[in-house]
């Protein structure tokens, strides 16, 4: 027996190696670089706190983080509402397995195209002379094209919701499918009405799915830069965009410091979610 004690280590070795090489080492590198100095062309190995001082001392950082958190909160609420509704419909209202699978596949069809294309295709649709405005003006609903539709916070949130709702649907649908149907019947037999079944049986049993979906959506929105840039017409900031700007100007240490802070913030958020819901129950 003694001779086999190394086997579990061998079994975890591949994953440990992958995590070590592609996650732990890069993150440590980012941490180290965040203390380096830089000028316009070089990064200089050093131990300085200027990157953090400049970042944390600037009112822009706070504003940008608040703005990103605001996007994350709005998008979370919207994707949760839409995602839960769709998952509920698929799980409980579509009776036949075939149709359930078919409808679920239809939900995923947009994801066969690239994320960027799905986002950019909103631009001609929402523009001042775009399809929607032409239709609204043509139908006499509005006199002037609606300017807030594109290059605005509205456009950013719309694109996010469109891009990320599926990440909410899939885990919630998965949780719902695992709910023992007899529990629901029992609830009805015990005299519960539809709303009570929803709030007292289905939602509590879906919590792990909701938590997983929320982690996906929140982390994706917190780290995004490309959606914010294109849909706001370069007029709004996000944390990811701040980093992307710094990187494009060779200010790697500043970007690294920002990445470290974003990582801490996102980990705290994920940690908080894990405290509320025990995700392992799901897995």
């Amino acid at each position: 027996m003694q001779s086999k004690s190394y086997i579990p280590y061998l079994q975890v070795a591949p994953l440990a190696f992958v995590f070590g090489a592609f996650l732990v080492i890069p993150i440590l590198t980012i941490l180290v670089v965040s203390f380096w100095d830089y000028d316009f062309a070089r990064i200089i190995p050093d131990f300085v706190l200027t990157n953090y001082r400049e970042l944390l001392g600037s009112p822009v950082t706070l504003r940008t983080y608040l703005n990103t958190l605001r996007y994350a909160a709005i998008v979370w609420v919207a994707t949760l509402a839409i995602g839960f509704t769709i998952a509920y419909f698929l799980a409980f209202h579509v009776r036949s397995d075939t149709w359930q699978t078919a409808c679920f596949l239809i939900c995923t069809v947009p994801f066969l195209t690239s994320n960027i294309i799905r986002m950019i295709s909103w631009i001609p649709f929402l523009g001042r002379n775009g399809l929607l405005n032409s239709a609204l003006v043509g139908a006499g609903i509005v006199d002037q094209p609606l300017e807030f539709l594109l290059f605005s916070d509205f456009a950013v949130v719309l694109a996010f919701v469109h891009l990320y709702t599926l990440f909410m649907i899939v885990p919630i649908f998965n949780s719902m499918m695992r709910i023992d149907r007899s529990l629901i019947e029992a609830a009805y037999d015990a005299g519960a009405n539809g709303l009570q079944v929803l709030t007292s049986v289905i939602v509590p049993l879906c919590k792990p799915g909701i938590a997983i979906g929320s982690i996906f959506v929140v982390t994706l929105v917190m780290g995004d830069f490309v959606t914010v840039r294109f849909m706001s017409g370069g007029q709004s900031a996000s944390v990811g965009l701040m980093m992307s700007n710094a990187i494009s100007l060779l200010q790697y240490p500043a970007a690294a410091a920002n990445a470290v802070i974003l990582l801490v913030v996102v980990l705290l958020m994920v940690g908080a979610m894990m405290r509320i819901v025990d995700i392992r129950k799901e897995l």
Partner: protein
Amino acid sequence: MGKDKMAGRTRGINRRTVLKGAAAGIGLAAGSGAITGFPTIWAQNIKNVTLRQFGTGVSNLNAIAEKCKADTGITLQMTALDSDAVAQRAVTQPKSFDIADIEYWICKKVFPAGVMQPMDTKKIKNVDKIVPLFLNGKLKPDSVIAQGTAPHSVGFVEGKDSTRFAKSQTQWMTMIPTIYNADTLGIRPDLVGRPITNWKDIMDPKFKGKASILNIPSIGIMDAAMICESMGEIKYGDKGNMTKAEIDKTISIMTAAKKAGQFRAFWKTFDESVNLMASGEVIIQSMWSPAVTAVKSKGIPCVYQPLAEGYRAWGGGLGIAKHLSGLELDAAYEYINWYLSGWVGAYLNRQGYYSAVLDTAKQHMSADEWAFWMEGKPAKTDIMSPDGKLLEKAGAVRDGGSFENRMGKVACWNAVMDEDRYMVQKWNEFIAA
């Protein structure tokens, strides 16, 4: 990274010793006048050489690579990146390119990092015919040198191994100028509804939510400065090298306008600017000349409006990577000589840019083309783009007129400031505001 640099340095020394020997030989040859035939000696071998060129999209054109292959046998592999990415790649991956096709303000950042080698002007055939703007900063002997990073100020270094820019013309050029232009605001004449004469017109409340400027800090700040100066809000010592106070003031004016909703969007790439203008989202904005052409070629009216305060100019050139030597270095010189020999110049001139050696380009253009593009005269026949699309009908006149009229009215060049880091920080605050 530290290790790489060390390795680079040792190799540099080795190469230098080799070059010293070679230089003596070349010096002799040059003295005896034998140097003129030099490139052709290698013509056979050069056919097999591949040069990796990277740069901003403007002159990384496939047509040039194809013609170069046909004329010289040299294969060019071109990579197009945005300005920031080019500077970044040049400094961080100096071995990833052979030829850098970069702007002069990027050169000011990149050359001192020691990733490029200066060129011996004795090996450049048409060096005397290069527009004097790149040699001494003056278009004509009595011109005033414009503000900003004027190309001649970073065009030469003190010696073969130097990375210090020389005050005046020397034998060692950092880059051979290839392409340049004078930028101004683009407008939709059908939608602005009033004459546009000054940079400040972009801030007219009438254009609220219909204006745009570009979000590349080093260039955007210059447009912003042209606007603020035109508004009479700020009088700059040197727009190309602002003080912190000047940067603060400029950014606060732009931020106030942004918060008031003056701007529809900020663009970062050429295509974005074309789409903004063509879709009518924006009717007045910072623009680059070929973007105006691109909007026009969709049948949408667009004018590259000359303004009273003058133009913001930029210039690009070809530089050689430090690691090139031997046959590849010869091929690089051969390529650069070919570049200045006229065909490319004519090609670029026909796109609305300017080429560095005008005499040779003229030989490759029809008299009518030359009159339209360079002399600002009405076109006698339809004007076609190099790839055969109709650009202007007969009778049209180029926006801004002749070469002297446009390049003679340059108010400032794209620049890198001493307060670069501060400026970028402030610019990002403006974008985030």
